[in-house]
């Protein structure tokens, strides 16, 4: 492998990894929204949802309160 190719591979690796992380964040956000909405429809409190997600009640409410209040 020439030095040029090595340099390209090294540059591409973080970009590929970061792209995967970004895609994973987006996927996780969508799954979270779907499940929070369903939990609210099933009568779950914000506190119960927050405990399952491992975050504060305020964090969940701030994020979804308007949408799924």
């Amino acid at each position, binding site marked *: 492998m020439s030095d040029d190719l090595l340099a390209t591979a090294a540059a591409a690796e973080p970009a590929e990894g970061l792209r995967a992380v970004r895609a*994973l964040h987006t996927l996780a956000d969508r799954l979270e929204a779907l499940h929070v909405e369903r939990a609210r429809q099933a009568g779950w409190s914000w506190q119960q949802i927050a405990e399952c997600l491992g975050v504060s009640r305020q964090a969940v409410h701030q994020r979804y309160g308007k949408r799924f209040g």
Partner: protein
Amino acid sequence: MFERFTHDARTAVEQARVEAGALGAQRIDAGHVVLGAVSEPDAVATLALARLGASADDVRDILRARPDGPLDADALAAIGIDLDAVRTQVEATFGPGSLDGAPGSRPRGFDPSAKKLLEVALREAVRLRDRRIDTGHLLLAAARVGEGPAQDVLTGLGLSPQDVRDAVAEVHATRPAA
């Protein structure tokens, strides 16, 4: 309102619908209209963006990267996640299209940001005393609205409203709007 649109502006609106559908969007927003405006190589908006070093592909990349854009199946596959398998699971619980819209579907129409962009484009044409609305006016409208999906595209391209106004004026100077 489309009777005052030039041929390239009508094409832009139709392409906005096609692009929004390809991106799996439920409705056409102002970002899709900006992409539609630069879909033809000789459109005023395309020439103006080219002067600023930007292309339709750049605009499409920005729309793809939005949180409501298509999920990046290739990037997920690279870390061992099969998006099709995830989608099958999720849709079994939440119904078809719940994880993402259906790419290739036909969007239902313009959302408020797109309607606003078209209105502002009309006002830009009136302000410039142009009889017709072309894709240059659509781009001027994007630079005028100040927030929302069209502004996000310009920000993503690293362009200020003044950059856009100057570039459109330069193209209009060589190719006056009818």
